[in-house]
């Protein structure tokens, strides 16, 4: 039984807008939920490098290649900030990685889709990073200090990701008919997965009330999704691309777009591991871990040797 007085103080602190820091008392459910969310977020940044990494060697110009490299490097950085922040909750990175590799921990559903053409790199930056920004700006106001600070830093870096993606799409949309078709095809394939990556709709996502009160979750999935749609639809129109949703309409009364039904069955299948690339992504991660092991060990041995030499000298 957790001390009800401690919970009261903890909740009062959060209600007053104060941050919870690693050594502060916190309920076990808060710690567990944060570890789950933050590690899932960290894994997403890391696995998220794979679909884009696929195009680094085939970027259409040196400019695009340098940009894509920088973007993918940022994602590696985001993964590291988030693993660090998660470690402050008393779990180490070896454990976090083993949870990813054994399939115990999840990562974002979106990275289980393939990147078939160069336009997919545009669609990812524009839509996937765009959706992630909506979610992350909300999380930056969350109550756990290290997570919120990591989010602030990440959000600053994300807007370049979002813009470079839109720029790719814009250039293709203004190019030859084939290029425009390629851009439209990428939008057709990435739109719904991007909508879904913001998570199940509110009536399917349980126990949000406590998480909202604890400022672990800041906004409901549907609210974030609505904002993403409202901001993105005009961006598509501006470059002459069509959102693949025949039911999409602007509702002048509410000032929001209404959208067609979401295929949640597909979402839950991908989460369960049955998306087009789940096995491939996980294999790339576990291979990297196995093949990198001797490097980690050699670096430790080398550091120990140099330390010894220092002591003798």
């Amino acid at each position, binding site marked *: 039984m957790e001390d009800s007085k401690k919970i009261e103080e903890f909740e009062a602190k959060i209600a007053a807008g104060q941050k919870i820091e690693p050594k502060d008392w916190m309920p076990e459910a808060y710690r567990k939920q944060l570890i789950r969310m933050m590690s899932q977020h960290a894994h997403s940044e890391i696995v998220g490098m794979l679909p884009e990494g696929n195009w680094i060697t085939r970027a259409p110009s040196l400019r695009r290649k340098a940009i894509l490299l920088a973007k993918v490097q940022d994602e590696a950085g985001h993964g590291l900030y988030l693993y*660090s922040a998660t*470690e402050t909750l008393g779990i180490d990175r070896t454990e976090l*990685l083993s949870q990813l590799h054994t399939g115990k921990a999840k990562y974002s559903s979106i990275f289980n889709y393939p990147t078939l053409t160069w336009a997919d790199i545009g669609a990812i930056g524009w839509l996937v990073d765009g959706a992630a920004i909506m979610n992350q700006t909300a999380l930056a106001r969350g109550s756990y200090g290290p997570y919120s600070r*990591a989010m602030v830093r990440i959000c600053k870096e994300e807007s370049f990701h979002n813009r470079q993606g839109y720029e790719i799409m814009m250039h293709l949309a203004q190019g030859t008919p084939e290029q425009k078709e390629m851009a439209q095809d990428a939008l057709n394939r990435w739109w719904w997965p991007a909508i879904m990556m913001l998570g199940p709709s509110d009536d399917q996502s349980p126990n949000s009330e406590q998480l909202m009160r604890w400022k672990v979750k800041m906004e409901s999935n549907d609210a974030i999704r609505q904002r993403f749609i409202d901001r993105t639809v005009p961006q598509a129109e501006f470059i002459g691309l069509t959102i693949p949703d025949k039911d999409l309409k602007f509702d002048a009364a509410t000032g929001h777009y209404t959208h067609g039904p979401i295929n949640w069955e597909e979402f839950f299948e991908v989460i369960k591991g049955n998306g087009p690339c789940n096995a491939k992504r996980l294999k790339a991660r576990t291979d990297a871990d196995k093949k990198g092991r001797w490097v*980690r*060990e050699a670096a430790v041995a080398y*550091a120990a040797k140099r330390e010894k030499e220092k002591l003798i000298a």
Partner: protein
Amino acid sequence: MSDTQWPLWEVFVQANPGIPHKHVGNVHAADAEMAIQNARDVYTRRSEGISIWVVPAAAISASSPEDQGAFFEPSNDKPYRHPTFYKIPEGVKYL
């Protein structure tokens, strides 16, 4: 040898000359040299710094949040440490 993610190092970055190094986060690395290189790649990709310190995380001792009240108490009841404690008549200059 069990698998290793390398020891943890806390990272401090000086953004500009003449100001203190500030804690920005941490990195895993086999030794100090690698920690500095990793810190450069993780925390200063957009010219956020001109100098980096790394400290083994295990070497840092910290005050405990539970004792925060009592620990910092001695300074709370000494308002006379602040210049605003003293009433100086109007008209007295440069004081």
